Each structure stands twice: as structure tokens, then as C-alpha cells.
């Protein structure tokens, strides 16, 4: 039986063997692997790219104080981006399941329609949720738009839910019982995160402070975006740091939402605010990359 970390090693090795750069997680908090610059910005433009990384993904509203065996504040996604999509992408994906010891001839795999959309990112795609014996283990998406921009190369995004997949492999009913490494359970490693972040997100986060932080990050990002058109040396312009502020806003929005501080009416407005700076960065990024290519 493979431990959680061995499953991760095998998947990374599998995709490394197929030409993927193996990246480490982005060092700013995100809600999903899609939001990392390695996906959000790299899928833009005409340059081929292949990357895989594990991204701890924070969903403040999904926290359950470590009491629910299936729901987590912070779960781990293995994110794979194949740009452009190879013709045999699904066969490659199925091969990755075999690589972690799932004999597909003995299991039931189905691809069920599930189109993905992230309104805060102006991003959407067409795809499936992949069901293994009735369990959703992967979201598979053909990216169509990101930051409101049509994607030149239609990348495939494969997002594995690592906890679910490992619980399946280890036949565990509770995520906390998964063996992360020999002698260490998932609970040993992550229980404190689940408990303490649930307490913070649901009970103790100071709404006023979070709003202030949101405003500050939004303002800083907007300030940078305002400067970009006039910047003389575009290549030097700090769009990657600007994007980190988008991510901060996104996570603060999610935390405020979990805290119950955003009414349904406000919600649409706040989503628009995040979307505006996300789209702004994406457009500037495409311009910047285009300029860099032209210069080469």
C-alpha cells in the first residue's frame, strides 16, 4: 500500500516522464491549483508549456474543525497543465491511474460532463469529472478562456484530488486515517490546520481587518495595473507581484464569505472587483509576453 506521499511521488514521476516541469506549490494562499501563476498566466499566449505541481488549496467555507471525515479546509490538488493538449491526453491520464496501482480493468471509470467556471478569474473550460467506482477523483478541463481571453493553445488541465484518491487506494473511510508517511497519519500532519483555521475562519477572523486587507491588496494591484501602460521597459514590469495581490484578494474574499460577512447582494460586487484586477493582470501579461517574444 502506497502512502500519501508515495502516491504524490509516483504521479509527479509519471508526469515528469511525459515532459512536465515539476514545480513546487505557489507560495501565496490559493483556493485551487488553477489560480497559481503556473496555470493562470502560463496558459495564456502561444508558448507551449507542461507543468505539474501539488498545490495546497484553501477553502475556508469547507472547514469542519477536523470533525468531518471527508471535508477539509485545506486539501491538496495535483495540478497538471498540458499546453497544447496531446491527442492521447485521456489515455495518458488513465495511464497515470495505472501508475499508482489502479487496475482499471477491475474498476469502473466514467467521464461525466462537468464544465468548469471561475467567475473571479474570468476563466472557464469544458470537461468532465472523472468518476472511479462512483467517487469523483479528478476534474478534467479543456481550458477555453482565462482572464476573459481566448486561449491560443487550448491546454488540458488535470486536477487530482489527492486525499480522495489516496483514501480510495488505502481503503480508508476517513481522510484523517490516511497514512501520509510510514508511522504518520494525515491527521498527525494536518489536524491542527483543520481545527485552527476553522476556528479562525468561522469565529475569530476580524471582519473589519479582513476588509481593510482586501482593499489594500486591491488598491496595490490596481495601482500597478495603472502604471503598466506607461511603463517604458515592459519586461521589467512587476506583473507577477501584481498577480499575488489578486490571489490575496481572492483568499480574503473566501474567508470573509466563510465568516458570513458578505451578503448575497454584496457578493456579486466583490466577485466583480476581483475579476477586474485578475482580468487586468491577464491582459497585461499577454501584452508583456508578446513584447518579449517580439524582442527575441
Amino acid at each position, binding site marked *: 500500500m502506497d502512502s500519501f506521499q508515495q502516491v504524490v511521488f509516483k504521479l509527479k514521476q509519471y508526469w515528469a516522464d511525459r515532459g512536465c516541469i515539476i514545480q513546487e506549490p505557489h507560495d501565496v494562499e490559493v483556493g485551487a491549483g488553477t489560480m497559481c501563476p503556473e496555470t493562470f498566466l502560463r496558459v495564456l499566449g502561444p508558448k507551449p508549456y507542461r507543468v505539474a505541481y501539488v498545490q495546497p488549496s484553501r477553502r475556508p467555507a469547507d472547514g469542519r474543525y477536523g470533525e468531518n471525515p471527508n471535508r477539509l479546509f485545506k486539501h491538496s490538488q495535483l495540478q497538471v497543465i498540458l499546453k497544447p493538449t496531446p491527442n492521447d491526453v485521456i489515455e495518458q491520464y488513465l495511464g497515470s491511474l495505472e501508475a499508482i496501482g489502479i487496475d482499471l480493468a477491475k474498476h469502473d471509470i*466514467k467521464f461525466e460532463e462537468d464544465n468548469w467556471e471561475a467567475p473571479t478569474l474570468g476563466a472557464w473550460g469544458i470537461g468532465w469529472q472523472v468518476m472511479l467506482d462512483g467517487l469523483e477523483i479528478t476534474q478534467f478541463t479543456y481550458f477555453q478562456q482565462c482572464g476573459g481571453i481566448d486561449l491560443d493553445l487550448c491546454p488540458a488541465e488535470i486536477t487530482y484530488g489527492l486525499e480522495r484518491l489516496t483514501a480510495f487506494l488505502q481503503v480508508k473511510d476517513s481522510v484523517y486515517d490516511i497514512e501520509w508517511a510510514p508511522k504518520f497519519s494525515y491527521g498527525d500532519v494536518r489536524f491542527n490546520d483543520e481545527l485552527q483555521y476553522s476556528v479562525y475562519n468561522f469565529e475569530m477572523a476580524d471582519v473589519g481587518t479582513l476588509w481593510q486587507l482586501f482593499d489594500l491588496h486591491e488598491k496595490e494591484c490596481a495601482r500597478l495595473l495603472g502604471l503598466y501602460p506607461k511603463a517604458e521597459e515592459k519586461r521589467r514590469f512587476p506583473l507577477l507581484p501584481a498577480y499575488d495581490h489578486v490571489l490575496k484578494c481572492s483568499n480574503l474574499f473566501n474567508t470573509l464569505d466563510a465568516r458570513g460577512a458578505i451578503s448575497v447582494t454584496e457578493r456579486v460586487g466583490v466577485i466583480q472587483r476581483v475579476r477586474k484586477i485578475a482580468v487586468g493582470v491577464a491582459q497585461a501579461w499577454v501584452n508583456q509576453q508578446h513584447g518579449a517574444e517580439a524582442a527575441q
Partner: protein
Amino acid sequence: MSALPFLLEIGVEEIPDWMIGGALESLRALFQELLTGRNLAEGVTLTLDATPRRLVLRAQGLTERQTDSEELLLGPAKSAAPAAIEGFARKLGVNVDDLGVEKGPKGDRVSYRKKVAGRATTEILAEALPGIILKIYFPKTMFWIAPGGPRFIRPIRWIVALLGDAVVPFELAGVHSGNQTSGHRKLGKARVPVTFETYEQTLLENFVILSADERRKKILAEVEASVKPDPALLETLVYITEYPTVIGGSFDPSYLTLPAEVLVTVMKHHQKYFSVEDKSGALAPRFFAVMNSNGDPDGLVRSGNERVLRARFNDARFFWDADQKATLAARVPSLESVMFQAKLGSYLDKTKRVADLVNELGGDADAVRAAELAKCDLTSELVKEFTELQGVVGGLYARVQGETETAARAIYDQYKPSSMEDSVPRDRAGQILSIADKLDTLRGCFSIGLIPTGSRDPFALRRAGQGIVKILVEAKLSLPIAGIVKENAQLAEFFLDRVRYYFKEIRGFQYDEVNAVLASGWDDLVSVESRLAAVQAVRPTPNFEPLAASFKRIQNILKQADFKGGVSIDPALLEPGAEAELHAEFENVRATVSKKAHGPALEAIASLRPAVDRFFDKVLVNAADPHVRRNRLALLYQLRSEFSTIADFSEIVTTS
């Protein structure tokens, strides 16, 4: 020339099940159009099939080529100078002797019948198929090569195109047509050659059952008779599998303490399982899942599915228990933070409005109580998780929290009918609550300009309107709805459209019958239904349509005379004969009509036809004496207004 079979298989990554039927119909129509347009359709039969990964069209009886045809080319007049005629022949590259003569309206002309050889069918297909494939209709498409590139439901990965034994060669989205199909993803070969004759058998050997009907039969044969029939779920399963195999599973009976609605929703909507009923009709702790595979020898699929279901049920139990910490009644204030619509306020505001409306519509104490609690389940964990159970969950909670059974049922049924096929709420309280809730939404949205246009109807207002109509008619409720919708002219028009839609499209009445009846008033839809039934029944009788034609004539006469009534009939001015007889019959019928049901009343009115006919035959309305003329107009006016309470007959489209 021998007939050839044709096979087209479009190999695609998994197509959403619900789109497949429409895609096949679209493919059939496009292909038929091609054959017809190219003179190839005669004697050809088409068969269409699909699995999630392939759309298949097979044609029998195609000819190898189009038949040869002739094209008639006209030259100069026969009387033209020989040089001109020689020129015509030279241009065509033929001898003057080969030319003929064609008679025309301006005299004889030199002509030539050019033989056009029919093109090879394979050429025509190769040319047309890429376009046809890309035109297949899907509700949502994607690009996978580049933004301006081909669009399809999912990427096309292979194409089989065989006419007889030969490949029909073409290229689409980088895929070259060939003779190789692909079997089941895990159980079959990835590439395997086929012919038209071996195609279906080869697929079967590679674990693909091509025929949806065969897959359906296999599923039905393998599930137990005790499963709850579910045609929609069955169709989904037929079209998300290439080789369906049923497995049975079970769950701990302790979960049966959760409401069956919740368990069934988890099994059906979230897991696509059939649920099972025991002999008494109660839910049994078992289920059937359909795999896309040929077996589960080690029981891995079964135990995996059972584990997923257990986790889902645990979630549901957790939410159910958590929700009991606050009763529906205690949740009312928290509705203030659930927004209904920015300009229309929160669900608390809506709750107050709906409760008032229920009162206004004559709802009893149970109905009002149900209205007050109706939206509280929106704040429950269970509804946040299973949104499709809104209303149902509220009803279940109301029951366990000691609300009256009637109020609980009203809450449970409040969103009914969810479609025109769904039933209406069971009790009067639920019917009034459902109407009030929908009416409030309509009234509110129209007041702030959120009016459906074309295909845009984000608040599903049409469905709400039709729901109201359906409840009023089918529950036989004579409620003062019309007065409320008429407060807003646009809403009144919209509502009238919903009434028309319901009676025409759902109930199948003729459009002119609907127009005729609605023109006589629609304040009470129960009466509308009864009047429509009467018109429909009397319409085939011989007197009806001619009488309707006479009513139209009457209406025209009154209109031309600009006669607005207000004149009583003076019997002394009636001319003996046809006019006096019509008046007498009119008085007779009038006396009986008001006491009769709509049907007999209509028959009585129709019996006036001979008298009306005679009147128009013998009597000139436009009499020289203005008093006589006015008297006649008054007679016609009364005739029309008295007998238009059931339907305005002048709206009936007559053939005479």
C-alpha cells in the same frame, strides 16, 4: 449499378449523455439533406446509433455514382446566320450536326443537349462530410486546436468512413478518415479495422454495445424488478456507458432513519444509482449501480460504490442533525440575510409579501403558517448541500417540528409544479402558497423591469406563470388572480400569453378556439377551461362554423356602422318575417342560455343559425328609414353581446 452500404463513425471523447439524441437527429437531417440535394436519396435507408464515444450513421442502398444527366444549352435563333450557329457549335466543341432545335416562345432556337456524367458518390461524400460533421448541433461546443479552429462537443479523435469496402477519404481537425474504429477504453483494442458488415460485431468483441436499445435491455435485464422505475436515469445510464453491467450494493439499514427523499436524491442525482423498494413500497437498504465495464469479479467496484454512498449518507445525517438545532420558526429572522433580489429585498421581505398574498387569496391559517415558514429551509445545511431538495426539506422539518400536517405538506409542495409534466400541490393550502409565491416573484420582477425577452428568462418567470395557470385550472381554483396581474399591463399581457400557451401547447386546443374564449374574458381560468371544452365539443356540429361566420359578419356591420349599442330593440319596428323571427328566436334562446351549462348553451346558440341565415338573406340592415336601421343594428348588437360571454365567435377561423 450495385447498391453500396455506407458507414460513418465519428470517434469523440465522452459526449454528455443528454446531448446525444439531438446530435443524432441533427446528423440524420444533415445527411438526408445532402443525399436529396445530390440526387442520391432514392431507396436509401439510414440507421443512427451512438455511445458516449461515437456517433454512427449507416446508410444502405447508395449508388456508386449519381446518374448521368443532360443539360440543355440554348444557342442563337434557328434563323440566325450560319456563322452564328457554327460559332455556337465551335464554342461547345461539337459539330453543327450534333445540334438540335428547341421550340421557344420567341421562335425556334438552336440547342445542344450536353451530357453530364454523374459524379462518384465517394467524391461527393468526401467533399461534404467534414462540413456536415461540424454542423451537427450541440448546445455547447469547444475548440481544441485553436480559437478559430473547428468546434465540436469534445475533441474528435478518429473517423471511420467506408463506402462499400473503400475508405471515403477526407480530413477534419487533423484527423484522417479510415477504416479503424476504437473499442472500449479499457476492455477493447484501441485501433481495430472494420467493414460495414463486421462493424457491429467487431465493436461487441471490443466491449462496445452499439445499439442504445441493446444497452437499455441489458441494464433492465440485470436490475431486479424491485427497483424504482426511473426512465430519465435509465436514459442517462444508457448514454454514459458503452458496455453497461449492473452491480447491486447495500447500505446499513440505520441510514433508513433519514427521510427517503434525501436518500433517494443522493442515490439518484449524485450517484446515478437505482434505489430499491421492498414489498410494502418502503425504501430498502440496497441499490443498483451501472458500471461501464464487464464485471466486478473481486467486488472492488461494489465496495467502492458502497463506501462513497456511506460517506454521502454520513454527510446528509450530519446536516440533518445539525439542522435540528434551530427550528424553521427560529430561522425566520435569519432570512433577512438571504437575498432574494437586490431591488426586491431579502427572503424575509418576500416571506412577508407572500404571507399577505396567501391571506388575500383566501388561504386558511395553515396556508398562512406555511407561507411564513416556507423559505426557512434555505438556511439549512441540508438544502445548501442538496439544493434540489428545497421545499421538500422544509416540509420534512415542519413535520418533525410539530407543525400541522397540512402546513408541512404545503411547504413540501410549494415549488410544484416544477414543470408542465409535474403534478400540482396536493392540498388547497399548498396550491395557494405555490400560486402566491410565484405571483409575488412575477409581480416583483415586472415592477423592476426584469421581464423575459426571447430566450432570456433568468428568473424562470415563464415557468412560474405557467405553474400558476396549471394550478388554477387543474386544481379548479377560482381565485382573483387576473385582477392582480392586470395591475401591470406588461404582466397582464405576459400572463395571458402563459394562459394561451397552456391551453394550446399543453392541452392541445386550437389557437382560434383559445382566442375566441379568451376574448370573452379570462378572469376565471376554471371557466375558461369549461368554455373551451364546450367550444371544442360544439365546433364539429354543422351549425357552428356557419354561425361563427355570421358573427364575423355581424361584427363587421357593427364596426362599419360605428354602432356602440345603448339602444333597446323596438318590437314595433321589426319587419314581419325573417327579422321578427330572428328576434323571437333570439329571445327564446337568451332565456334558456343563462341557465344552461356552457355546452348546452353553445348548442342552443348554434341552433340560431337558420334564423340568422334567413335574416341576412331577406333583410337589408342598411334600411332607408334611419329608425329601422338603428333597430336592426340594436338587434345584431344584442345578439352578439349576449352570446359572446362564452366565446367571441368572430375569432373562430372558418373555412366558409
